[in-house]
């Protein structure tokens, strides 16, 4: 059916925030219910550069007559400087008039051929994504439209003022969401002077101050060949993919890669932020700076966190908070690896009167995990889950295009997926304990609560 349909459903448990894991089987705790080991054949990723230095990653997927393209620029909100919201604003303006077409015509061109365009900005990345059928006249229209959006955005003043109003109203709507309030307070305090501190969409004052010149300057600096990654998955051959990548980004100036971001400073002491909000629940976030993409401790922290609070049912936080005490519907922990140290976060929401109990249990669960590490059973179970589900990671073009864009953006090795399982299998009880002891300090946590006192 079409996108207009809203499906009203409630899930039994919260779908994990972080891409859920991968999998296999060595031990057999229940012989009747286990099957043969799983092949970990990964993807065959082609990889080259456009004439102006953009990196292209391509996976040939001939089964369906469609293609997914994801273009990622190192132009996320970490590049805002003092103008919080600039990266997101620039990204949002791209399809508001470009080339020979105004906003309405661009929308019509995509809709008329059933192509799907979207854009978004995060702290590290600015993203443009396209899905189209590969039938020649259709794809040609999709690509020429996307090409204008990438290369010739108008940044028209009237459109800019209209989008500014939209951004301001969406910032206002965030004030009626205790979860969003908590999230913003968490990043603001955790990252303090670091560029990751500011909210991606900015603040009302900073968004109001952004000028057309700011946007044009930002676009010129960051939407350049050497700052771009193009991921393509679909029913094209390599020559067609090459041609498509050149058309989409090949005409951008070569430019420069974005400069390195500053290192993230660890918290020097425990900090507490409490915000009053007239909700029936208190939203709780507890954490620290965590790790980078490609971090040397990545697999130990990833597998360890799977056991702590990343693995859904069966993880310690889920067991203690939800199963044993009925304190929350959603409770979790995760590391969000970014260009520089992304956060380690434990989170939940509970009725106001349970706040202290939940905080105490959360702290206790973390301390015990750091002091004692996981049990052998927990580790074996986590490895089976992570490695045994490997095929699910790459079972759709949609998943694959996001995956390879991520590999390209963070400059991870192309055999990353193919070696993923063996690296997970190599993690030991000691290596997890060691990594958590070095990387997570329970005495220096940031605690954010939003709710009624």
């Amino acid at each position: 059916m079409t996108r207009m349909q809203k499906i009203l459903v409630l899930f039994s448990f919260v779908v994990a925030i972080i891409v859920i894991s991968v999998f296999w089987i060595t031990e057999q705790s229940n012989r009747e219910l286990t099957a043969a080991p799983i092949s970990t054949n990964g993807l065959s990723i082609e990889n080259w550069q456009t004439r102006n230095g953009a990196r292209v990653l391509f996976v040939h997927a001939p089964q369906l007559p469609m293609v997914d393209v994801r273009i990622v620029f190192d132009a996320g909100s970490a590049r805002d400087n003092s103008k919080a919201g600039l990266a997101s604003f620039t990204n949002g303006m791209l399809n508001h008039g470009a080339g020979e077409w105004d906003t309405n015509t661009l929308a019509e061109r995509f809709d008329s051929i059933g192509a799907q365009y979207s854009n978004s900005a995060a702290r590290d990345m600015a993203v443009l994504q396209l899905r189209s059928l590969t039938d020649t006249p259709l794809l040609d229209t999709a690509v020429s439209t996307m090409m204008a959006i990438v290369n010739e955005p108008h940044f028209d003043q009237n459109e800019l003022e209209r989008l500014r109003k939209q951004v301001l109203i969406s910032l206002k709507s965030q004030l009626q969401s205790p979860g969003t309030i908590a999230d913003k307070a968490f990043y603001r305090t955790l990252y303090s002077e670091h560029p990751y501190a500011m909210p991606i969409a900015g603040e009302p004052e900073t968004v109001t101050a952004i000028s057309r010149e700011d946007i044009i300057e930002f676009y010129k600096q960051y939407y350049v060949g050497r700052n771009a990654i193009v991921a393509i998955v679909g029913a094209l051959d390599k020559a067609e993919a090459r041609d498509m990548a050149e058309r989409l980004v090949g005409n951008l100036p070569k430019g420069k890669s974005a400069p390195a971001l500053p290192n993230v400073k660890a918290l020097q002491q425990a900090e507490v932020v409490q915000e009053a909000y007239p909700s029936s629940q208190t939203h709780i976030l507890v954490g620290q700076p965590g790790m980078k993409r490609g971090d040397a401790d990545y697999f130990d922290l990833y597998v360890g966190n799977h056991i702590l609070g990343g693995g859904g049912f069966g993880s310690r936080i889920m067991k203690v908070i939800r199963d044993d005490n009925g304190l929350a519907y959603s409770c979790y922990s995760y590391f969000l690896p970014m260009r520089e140290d992304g956060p380690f976060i434990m989170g939940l929401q509970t009725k106001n009167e349970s706040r202290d109990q939940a905080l105490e249990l959360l702290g206790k669960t973390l301390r015990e995990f750091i002091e004692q590490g996981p049990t052998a059973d927990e580790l074996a179970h986590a490895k089976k889950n992570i490695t045994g589900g490997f095929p699910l990671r790459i079972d759709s073009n949609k998943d694959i295009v996001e995956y390879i864009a991520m590999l390209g953006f963070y400059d991870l090795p192309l055999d990353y997926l193919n070696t993923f399982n063996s690296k997970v299998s190599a993690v030991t009880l000691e290596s997890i304990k060691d990594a958590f002891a070095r990387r997570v300090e329970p005495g220096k946590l940031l605690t954010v609560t939003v709710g009624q006192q």
Partner: protein
Amino acid sequence: MLKNIVLWLAGIMLVLPQIGLAQVHETTLSNGMKVLVKEDHRAPVVVSQVWYKVGASYEDNGITGISHVLEHMMFKGTEKHGTGEFSRIIAENGGRENAFTGRDYTAYFQQLEKSRLPISFQLEADRMRNLTLPEVEFKKEVEVVMEERRLRTEDNPRALTQEQFYAAAFVSSPYHNPIIGWMDDLKNLTVDDLKTWYGRWYAPNNATLVVVGDVDAQAVFNLAEQYFGKLAPSEVRTMKPRPEIPQLGARNIAVKAPAKLPYILMGYKVPVVNTATEEWEPYALEMLAGILCGSNSARFPRELVREKQIAAGVTAGYDLFARQEDLLVFDATPAEGHSIEELRQAIEEQIERIKTEVVSEEELARIKAQVVAHKVYEQDSVFYQAMQMGLLETVGAGWQKLDEYPERIRAVTAEQVQAVARKYLVDDGLTVGILEPQSLTDKSLASAEH
């Protein structure tokens, strides 16, 4: 432009036969359980879903939310597999799993590497008949569900408005009640209520098994027979019909809650595939919703958001595969400096226009192109394919309606769009719900525990 679009569309139409839409294989086990299988050999994975014909719209007053609480309790153990064991085994096999409850269904799923399908079948067959429903687990889990209600509804002003809006729009229809249930009903629910509910609805002859993935259909049928075939059927009681009483005039409600932005919901009573006397009408309504608000080039985003700048955001919702008569709903937030009343008028003017002016061929063609393209895109997800089949089968429309859908949409004419607008988008069938924001700092207005 128009000519080009027609050409493009012709291009898309050519694509469909090329990809050879996979066939659905269907069988019914001797105990009455329906099994649907679609082979998709793109990746060595499989999704398995069990759909039960029970959901919030099957519930009586006093036990609202029981289908959803039972869904939570389905993870709390059987005689053979204790509390949490189901999830542990699926996880050890690298699987992902979850369950969901809607107005008209409750469904459970696992996504696995293809060789693990028997594990899913064995566990699902076990919990279809042998759930233990321990009191101690229930006491905790119902607290979890109350936290879920606080998270989703109590502390979310728009969700709160939607809940009250549906309760006003539907009087005798079970769509009056929220899926998650009223807070007081959750507080008074007992494990005995759940046992009765489980006994009444969880039986092979009230379930549909849907499997999509890298499998052989006949092998899946054999496997289904092996695990589910031995389960005894139940006598599933026929429910009394609970149609909505005729609406005799517009209804307006206000919801006061702590919030920053006003918000309006406008819902019109409309037929769905299950209830339509004219088969084409739901498809014309789908087209109507698409033309007004189905994509970025539709009329509402173009005219209300971008041109008049009277709306900050506006969406349309219509579920043509609901089990009972439903609403075509528009929801919107006014742009800064505009009132809810102005926004409502602007939406009503748009509706008036669609009644008086025939929509253009170009607009129709755009929606049709999107529907056809989507038919290709949806095959990128085995989960979505299974979900569609399970849903249509469970609400009584039948999975075959999926294959008919593009053709039915293609057949809709501009005159039919106008006809359904004139017939159904009328004041007497309208319910309007308005969120009136209250201060976020005044403690006296904090949402009280019910």
